[in-house]
Protein backbone atom coordinates (compact mmCIF):
# COMPACT_ATOMS: atom_id res chain seq x y z
CA UNK A 1 0.00 0.00 0.00
CA UNK A 2 1.54 3.20 -1.19
CA UNK A 3 1.07 6.07 1.22
CA UNK A 4 2.06 8.95 -1.08
CA UNK A 5 -1.21 9.06 -3.09
CA UNK A 6 -3.15 9.23 0.18
CA UNK A 7 -1.04 12.18 1.32
CA UNK A 8 -1.58 13.81 -2.07
CA UNK A 9 -5.36 13.41 -1.89
CA UNK A 10 -5.52 14.76 1.65
CA UNK A 11 -3.29 17.77 0.89
CA UNK A 12 -5.10 18.52 -2.37
CA UNK A 13 -8.56 18.24 -0.77
CA UNK A 14 -7.58 20.54 2.11
CA UNK A 15 -6.06 23.03 -0.34
CA UNK A 16 -9.07 23.13 -2.61
CA UNK A 17 -11.55 23.40 0.25
CA UNK A 18 -9.51 26.23 1.76
CA UNK A 19 -9.27 27.91 -1.65
CA UNK A 20 -13.06 27.86 -1.93
CA UNK A 21 -13.22 29.48 1.50
CA UNK A 22 -10.70 32.14 0.34
CA UNK A 23 -13.00 33.29 -2.44
CA UNK A 24 -16.23 33.07 -0.43
CA UNK A 25 -15.37 34.11 3.14
CA UNK A 26 -17.13 37.28 4.23
CA UNK A 27 -14.39 38.49 6.53
CA UNK A 28 -11.20 39.36 4.67
CA UNK A 29 -8.92 38.43 7.56
CA UNK A 30 -10.52 34.99 7.57
CA UNK A 31 -10.00 34.77 3.81
CA UNK A 32 -6.30 35.54 4.31
CA UNK A 33 -6.07 32.84 6.99
CA UNK A 34 -7.72 30.34 4.63
CA UNK A 35 -5.16 31.39 2.02
CA UNK A 36 -2.43 30.33 4.46
CA UNK A 37 -4.01 26.86 4.70
CA UNK A 38 -4.17 26.63 0.89
CA UNK A 39 -0.51 27.61 0.63
CA UNK A 40 0.45 24.95 3.17
CA UNK A 41 -1.35 22.34 1.07
CA UNK A 42 0.52 23.49 -2.01
CA UNK A 43 3.80 23.32 -0.07
CA UNK A 44 2.97 19.69 0.79
CA UNK A 45 2.50 19.01 -2.93
CA UNK A 46 5.93 20.56 -3.61
CA UNK A 47 7.40 18.09 -1.13
CA UNK A 48 5.67 15.24 -2.97
CA UNK A 49 7.25 16.56 -6.19
CA UNK A 50 10.68 16.29 -4.50
CA UNK A 51 11.12 20.04 -4.71
CA UNK A 52 11.82 20.56 -1.02
CA UNK A 53 13.52 23.90 -1.63
CA UNK A 54 10.35 25.25 -3.18
CA UNK A 55 8.29 23.99 -0.26
CA UNK A 56 10.54 25.98 2.08
CA UNK A 57 10.39 29.04 -0.18
CA UNK A 58 6.61 28.67 -0.29
CA UNK A 59 6.39 28.72 3.50
CA UNK A 60 8.89 31.57 3.93
CA UNK A 61 7.85 33.84 1.07
CA UNK A 62 4.16 33.11 0.58
CA UNK A 63 3.05 32.33 4.11
CA UNK A 64 5.65 34.36 5.95
CA UNK A 65 5.52 37.49 3.83
CA UNK A 66 2.66 37.60 1.35
CA UNK A 67 -0.11 36.22 3.56
CA UNK A 68 0.94 38.47 6.45
CA UNK A 69 0.94 41.43 4.05
CA UNK A 70 -2.63 40.51 3.06
CA UNK A 71 -3.69 40.42 6.71
CA UNK A 72 -2.13 43.86 7.25
CA UNK A 73 -3.87 45.23 4.17
CA UNK A 74 -7.21 43.77 5.24
CA UNK A 75 -6.83 45.38 8.65
CA UNK A 76 -5.66 48.75 7.28
CA UNK A 77 -8.66 48.96 4.94
CA UNK A 78 -11.21 47.91 7.52
CA UNK A 79 -14.46 49.68 8.45
CA UNK A 80 -15.62 50.01 4.86
CA UNK A 81 -16.76 46.54 3.93
CA UNK A 82 -16.40 44.68 7.14
CA UNK A 83 -19.00 41.92 7.27
CA UNK A 84 -21.73 44.16 5.87
CA UNK A 85 -23.35 43.86 2.50
CA UNK A 86 -22.60 41.23 -0.08
CA UNK A 87 -18.94 40.46 -0.68
CA UNK A 88 -19.66 39.13 -4.15
CA UNK A 89 -20.66 41.06 -7.22
CA UNK A 90 -24.25 40.95 -8.40
CA UNK A 91 -23.01 39.10 -11.50
CA UNK A 92 -21.21 36.39 -9.55
CA UNK A 93 -23.12 33.48 -11.16
CA UNK A 94 -21.63 34.62 -14.46
CA UNK A 95 -18.18 34.48 -12.91
CA UNK A 96 -18.93 30.97 -11.64
CA UNK A 97 -19.98 29.92 -15.14
CA UNK A 98 -16.76 31.34 -16.61
CA UNK A 99 -14.66 29.51 -13.99
CA UNK A 100 -16.47 26.21 -14.56
CA UNK A 101 -16.14 26.62 -18.34
CA UNK A 102 -12.41 27.27 -17.97
CA UNK A 103 -12.04 24.16 -15.82
CA UNK A 104 -14.01 22.07 -18.30
CA UNK A 105 -11.95 23.42 -21.18
CA UNK A 106 -8.68 22.66 -19.41
CA UNK A 107 -9.93 19.15 -18.63
CA UNK A 108 -10.91 18.62 -22.27
CA UNK A 109 -7.41 19.62 -23.38
CA UNK A 110 -5.73 17.53 -20.68
CA UNK A 111 -7.59 14.27 -21.36
CA UNK A 112 -6.74 14.49 -25.04
CA UNK A 113 -3.03 14.84 -24.23
CA UNK A 114 -1.18 11.51 -24.33
CA UNK A 115 1.38 12.45 -21.66
CA UNK A 116 -1.24 12.67 -18.92
CA UNK A 117 -0.50 9.38 -17.21
CA UNK A 118 3.26 9.54 -17.43
CA UNK A 119 4.85 8.09 -14.33
CA UNK A 120 7.42 9.96 -12.33
CA UNK A 121 10.90 9.18 -13.68
CA UNK A 122 13.51 8.43 -11.05
CA UNK A 123 16.09 11.10 -10.46
CA UNK A 124 19.47 10.17 -11.86
CA UNK A 125 21.88 8.49 -9.48
CA UNK A 126 23.67 11.15 -7.41
CA UNK A 127 21.73 13.98 -9.03
CA UNK A 128 21.13 17.03 -6.89
CA UNK A 129 18.44 19.25 -8.48
CA UNK A 130 18.96 22.01 -5.92
CA UNK A 131 22.69 22.18 -6.64
CA UNK A 132 21.95 22.24 -10.37
CA UNK A 133 19.46 25.06 -9.86
CA UNK A 134 21.88 27.08 -7.75
CA UNK A 135 24.64 26.73 -10.32
CA UNK A 136 22.29 27.54 -13.19
CA UNK A 137 21.11 30.72 -11.49
CA UNK A 138 24.62 32.21 -11.38
CA UNK A 139 26.03 30.72 -14.57
CA UNK A 140 26.37 33.10 -17.54
CA UNK A 141 25.38 30.22 -19.83
CA UNK A 142 22.05 29.74 -18.07
CA UNK A 143 19.83 32.00 -16.01
CA UNK A 144 22.03 34.71 -14.56
CA UNK A 145 20.31 37.50 -16.51
CA UNK A 146 16.71 36.55 -15.54
CA UNK A 147 17.91 36.05 -11.97
CA UNK A 148 19.45 39.53 -11.81
CA UNK A 149 16.38 40.99 -13.51
CA UNK A 150 14.24 39.44 -10.80
CA UNK A 151 16.39 41.16 -8.17
CA UNK A 152 16.03 44.49 -9.97
CA UNK A 153 12.27 43.91 -10.19
CA UNK A 154 12.08 43.28 -6.45
CA UNK A 155 14.02 46.47 -5.67
CA UNK A 156 11.83 48.47 -8.06
CA UNK A 157 8.69 46.98 -6.51
CA UNK A 158 9.94 47.79 -3.02
CA UNK A 159 10.73 51.41 -3.90
CA UNK A 160 7.44 51.72 -5.77
CA UNK A 161 5.40 50.25 -2.92
CA UNK A 162 6.98 52.61 -0.39
CA UNK A 163 6.45 55.60 -2.68
CA UNK A 164 2.83 54.75 -3.50
CA UNK A 165 1.71 53.89 0.02
CA UNK A 166 3.56 56.76 1.71
CA UNK A 167 1.54 59.29 3.62
CA UNK A 168 1.70 62.51 1.60
CA UNK A 169 2.87 65.58 3.47
CA UNK A 170 0.93 68.61 2.34
Amino acid sequence: MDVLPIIFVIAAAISLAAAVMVVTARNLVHAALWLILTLFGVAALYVLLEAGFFAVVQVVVYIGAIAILFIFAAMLTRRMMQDTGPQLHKAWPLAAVVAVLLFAGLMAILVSWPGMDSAKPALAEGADPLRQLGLALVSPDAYVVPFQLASVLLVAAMVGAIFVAREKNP
Partner: protein
Amino acid sequence: MIPLSWYLIFAAALFSIGLFGVLARKNAVAILLGVELMLNAANINLLAFWRYRAPEGVAGQAFALIVFAVAAAEVAVGLALIISIYRRRKSVIADEMNLLKW
Protein backbone atom coordinates in the same frame (compact mmCIF):
# COMPACT_ATOMS: atom_id res chain seq x y z
CA MET B 1 2.53 6.20 -7.61
CA ILE B 2 0.99 9.57 -8.35
CA PRO B 3 0.41 10.16 -12.07
CA LEU B 4 1.12 13.57 -13.55
CA SER B 5 -2.58 14.05 -14.29
CA TRP B 6 -3.43 14.46 -10.59
CA TYR B 7 -1.20 17.50 -10.30
CA LEU B 8 -2.56 19.00 -13.51
CA ILE B 9 -6.18 18.49 -12.46
CA PHE B 10 -5.47 19.97 -9.04
CA ALA B 11 -3.76 22.98 -10.61
CA ALA B 12 -6.64 23.49 -13.06
CA ALA B 13 -9.14 23.40 -10.19
CA LEU B 14 -7.09 25.83 -8.10
CA PHE B 15 -6.73 28.18 -11.07
CA SER B 16 -10.49 28.10 -11.73
CA ILE B 17 -11.25 28.86 -8.08
CA GLY B 18 -8.81 31.77 -8.21
CA LEU B 19 -10.38 33.04 -11.41
CA PHE B 20 -13.80 32.93 -9.77
CA GLY B 21 -12.41 34.97 -6.88
CA VAL B 22 -10.93 37.56 -9.22
CA LEU B 23 -14.14 37.90 -11.24
CA ALA B 24 -16.73 37.73 -8.47
CA ARG B 25 -15.24 39.59 -5.50
CA LYS B 26 -15.98 43.25 -4.91
CA ASN B 27 -13.16 43.99 -2.50
CA ALA B 28 -9.86 44.81 -4.22
CA VAL B 29 -7.82 42.99 -1.56
CA ALA B 30 -9.92 39.87 -2.14
CA ILE B 31 -9.26 40.15 -5.88
CA LEU B 32 -5.52 40.04 -5.15
CA LEU B 33 -6.11 36.93 -3.01
CA GLY B 34 -7.61 35.27 -6.10
CA VAL B 35 -4.58 36.28 -8.15
CA GLU B 36 -2.33 34.59 -5.58
CA LEU B 37 -4.30 31.36 -5.95
CA MET B 38 -3.85 31.51 -9.73
CA LEU B 39 -0.10 32.10 -9.44
CA ASN B 40 0.17 29.09 -7.12
CA ALA B 41 -1.67 26.91 -9.60
CA ALA B 42 0.74 27.97 -12.35
CA ASN B 43 3.70 27.18 -10.11
CA ILE B 44 2.40 23.69 -9.36
CA ASN B 45 2.13 23.06 -13.09
CA LEU B 46 5.68 24.30 -13.69
CA LEU B 47 7.18 22.10 -10.99
CA ALA B 48 5.05 19.06 -11.92
CA PHE B 49 6.11 19.30 -15.56
CA TRP B 50 9.72 19.76 -14.48
CA ARG B 51 9.66 16.67 -12.26
CA TYR B 52 7.73 14.39 -14.64
CA ARG B 53 8.93 15.46 -18.05
CA ALA B 54 12.42 16.98 -17.69
CA PRO B 55 13.92 16.20 -14.28
CA GLU B 56 17.47 16.49 -15.61
CA GLY B 57 16.98 20.15 -16.64
CA VAL B 58 16.61 23.21 -14.46
CA ALA B 59 14.28 25.30 -16.65
CA GLY B 60 11.14 24.45 -14.69
CA GLN B 61 12.72 25.20 -11.36
CA ALA B 62 14.26 28.47 -12.54
CA PHE B 63 10.91 29.54 -14.02
CA ALA B 64 9.09 28.71 -10.77
CA LEU B 65 11.63 30.74 -8.79
CA ILE B 66 11.08 33.77 -11.04
CA VAL B 67 7.32 33.36 -10.56
CA PHE B 68 7.85 33.52 -6.80
CA ALA B 69 9.78 36.79 -7.14
CA VAL B 70 7.16 38.27 -9.47
CA ALA B 71 4.36 37.26 -7.10
CA ALA B 72 6.10 38.98 -4.19
CA ALA B 73 6.61 42.16 -6.25
CA GLU B 74 3.03 42.07 -7.53
CA VAL B 75 1.51 41.76 -4.08
CA ALA B 76 3.67 44.53 -2.60
CA VAL B 77 2.80 47.04 -5.31
CA GLY B 78 -0.85 45.93 -5.49
CA LEU B 79 -1.47 46.30 -1.78
CA ALA B 80 0.36 49.64 -1.72
CA LEU B 81 -1.95 50.89 -4.49
CA ILE B 82 -5.03 49.65 -2.64
CA ILE B 83 -3.95 51.33 0.61
CA SER B 84 -3.22 54.57 -1.24
CA ILE B 85 -6.63 54.51 -2.92
CA TYR B 86 -8.27 53.73 0.41
CA ARG B 87 -6.61 56.79 1.97
CA ARG B 88 -7.87 59.11 -0.74
CA ARG B 89 -11.30 57.71 -1.50
CA LYS B 90 -12.17 55.73 1.65
CA SER B 91 -13.13 52.73 -0.44
CA VAL B 92 -11.65 49.40 -1.43
CA ILE B 93 -14.50 48.36 -3.72
CA ALA B 94 -13.13 47.74 -7.19
CA ASP B 95 -16.26 49.12 -8.87
CA GLU B 96 -15.79 52.49 -7.22
CA MET B 97 -12.22 52.93 -8.43
CA ASN B 98 -13.25 54.84 -11.54
CA LEU B 99 -10.74 57.69 -11.45
CA LEU B 100 -9.30 56.67 -14.82
CA LYS B 101 -12.65 56.02 -16.45
CA TRP B 102 -13.90 58.40 -19.09
